[in-house]
């Protein structure tokens, strides 16, 4: 699996959404499952998938699918 595929899978599995929904409209609370509980699940899924540990500031600022991509590069994950 490529890094982008891993990144996408984390979103699709955590929020039960399709690949078509992975776009710039996907933001915190834009889908039912992306609430505070879902957010924690997403962070856990990404940390596991890439074996990284997010900084607090990045966890709370990880507010959209697009923004998350930017953060990943900070953890040396090229998407």
């Amino acid at each position, binding site marked *: 699996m490529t890094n982008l595929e891993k990144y996408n899978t984390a979103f699709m599995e955590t929020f039960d959404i399709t690949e078509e929904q992975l776009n710039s409209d996907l933001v915190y609370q834009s889908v039912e499952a992306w*609430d*505070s*509980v*879902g957010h924690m*699940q997403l962070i856990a899924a990404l940390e596991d998938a890439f074996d990284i540990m997010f900084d*607090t*500031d990045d966890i*709370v600022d990880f507010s959209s699918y697009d923004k998350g991509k930017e953060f990943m590069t900070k953890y040396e994950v090229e998407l």
Partner: protein
Amino acid sequence: MTFYDKLEQFGEKKALITEQECLSYAQLQIAVNDLRAQINDRCLVFCLCSNNVESVTGYIAFLQMRVVPVMINPVINRELFASLLHTYEPNYIWAPKGFCPGQARYVYKDYALIKTEYGQKAELHPELALLLTTSGSTGSPKLVRQTYRNINHNAESIAQYLTISGDDRPITTLPMSYTYGLSIINSHLLKGAAIILTNDSLMEKSFWSLLKEKQATTFGGVPYTYEMLKRLRFLRMYLPSLKVLTQAGGRLGKELHLEFAQGCAEKGIRFIVMYGQTEATARMSYVPQEYSISKAGSIGISIPGGKFWLENDNGSVINEPDITGELVYHGNNVTMGYSTCQEDLAKGDELGGILRTGDMARRDEDGFYYIVGRKKRFLKVYGNRVNLDELESLLQKSGFEAACAGEDDHVRIYLDHGEPDEVLKIMTGLTGLNRSAFEISKIESIPRNESGKILYSELGQWK
């Protein structure tokens, strides 16, 4: 005099702080007076509440004029809301504008007071102050009947054991319709503290910015909140204004209890684990700060004015330490009981100050209590009480035979027919809980005994 009747004594002190505004106690009382002028008699009101100025204003106004509010979370499933309306026929609804149809009688900021079409006034017991749901999520019409005395006694007791002062500044992390969230508001208004109101979650940057900017000194959390804080590496965050963290709403595992007790001690934060139920207004016990490490995993000792004991199956009091029995509580904060229909609102006290908690506990030699299990079939999911039998009957109404079991924060649903995905959608839609709370498995058949009762102990093998 009760705390909600004497807000004016704090005058120009800050009462409510939001990102945009700040109201003094005097200003809050003025807003309260305006709302009070709209309702003449004691009656029933549905109070839709979030952590905002309008909700607190409504809540205080209703208590002051002895109008009885049913506290409801606006995220409630609409069908369940309709059924609550139908069951209780409130005379007014205080809700965000546009929440429900009807002409606004009065508007304050983003809230409107709607007069409903129900003309009859329910008969209300004179002591009845407030009605709270026990499980906001399954929308059961079962409400807890709290009295004016209950609210005041519990607020006084909480303020005493947490040594709350007018300099404290809690930031909201829990819904106001939830007994724990409400108790934080009550106990701080009692002492003239300023409350920072926000609906943002700990997972949002805006929450932490507000906490820092407005210098919050305390907040509360359910076990799941502490899971989040751990994930956020809270113990590494620099938040100099924070002095007290409280925890309730379910059992915090011993490991997490210890981790936060130690981590907070190092940071100079008091970490107080507590135990309570809506049926006891809010709080029944706490672990005093000096024992937070040595008694990790415990729910502590009873709050000032309250008393615990344990009873065995025969109803006899257990006096020896380390023997498990049902936890029973006595205190002025024990409510009058439940209501399941409008007629119940006229009922008086059915509990006589004694609450059988339904939790199984043991007491150690030093008198500290530990919860070891539950008598009733319910789970705590993200702080919400979820009754497993209610879930089964909700599913049955949707055409699914299911067996519900699991542990806190994790509901296991076993199906012998039907699509798990469909059931998951129904569950999240009805309860409003995140999908990760549910694990749905297909099994060949639901194990039952001869009389048709589900054998939950046999479900484990399907795990």
